[in-house]
């Protein structure tokens, strides 16, 4: 059974994806596999997706961590503040 995961995209990622979207993911799954799924949805976004950090519950999670729950995911492109 697949779970619906809400994803928020910031900044340059929005050239490739909607600010908010939902993807189906069979849990448990690594965050890396979620990234792979997004790359398939839009191969042109591969480079920026490879450089993104992932945040859940306002904390960064390692890409190889396994996602078990349906908490929303925030994709964080490289910072360019200042």
């Amino acid at each position, binding site marked *: 059974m697949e779970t619906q995961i809400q994803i*928020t995209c*910031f*900044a*340059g990622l929005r*050239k490739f994806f909607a600010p908010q979207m939902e993807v189906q993911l069979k849990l448990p799954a690594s965050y890396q596999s979620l990234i792979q799924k997004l790359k398939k949805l839009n191969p042109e976004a591969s*480079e920026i997706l490879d*450089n993104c*950090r992932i*945040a859940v519950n*306002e*904390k*960064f*999670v*390692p*890409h190889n961590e396994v996602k078990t729950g349906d908490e929303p995911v*925030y994709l*964080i*492109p*490289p*910072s*360019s*503040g*200042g």
Partner: protein
Amino acid sequence: MKHIQHTPIHYANLFDDFRDPNSGAVVLFSGEVRDNNKGKAVTHLEYEAYEPMAEKMIEEILADTHKRWDLNKAICVHRVGHVDISGCAVVVITASAHRAAAYEANRYIIDRVKYEVPIWKHEFYTDGSSEWGQNCDCSSPSHPHHHKHEYQHAE
């Protein structure tokens, strides 16, 4: 919201409010919008942030800074939204008894804020185009990525 601000930053006021009779050295850094970048004429910038996380991360960076240096005060305020040329995008102010700490801590704060905190600049050019900024050319194979390795998956 202490560190992320939707209205213009008045660093002069920030600085005036910063008086501390115990500090002999105050250093202020202002990151400002240049009229050009990578050979293109810039009309203005728009900054976006993942605000709740940006707030928390700047707070943590300031706390780390106080652990590393003997500082009396440190503040950091970053704009989001539209910023014109010569407008202030970010301000860091540090105060210490002696100047070495104020300088070093100030630079440490801005370096970490720029590389770690989820804030992004959108540059608008006179030719009508726009681009999301990068603080460094991360895709270059020669890029050292020291900041990335150090902080990327940190908590």
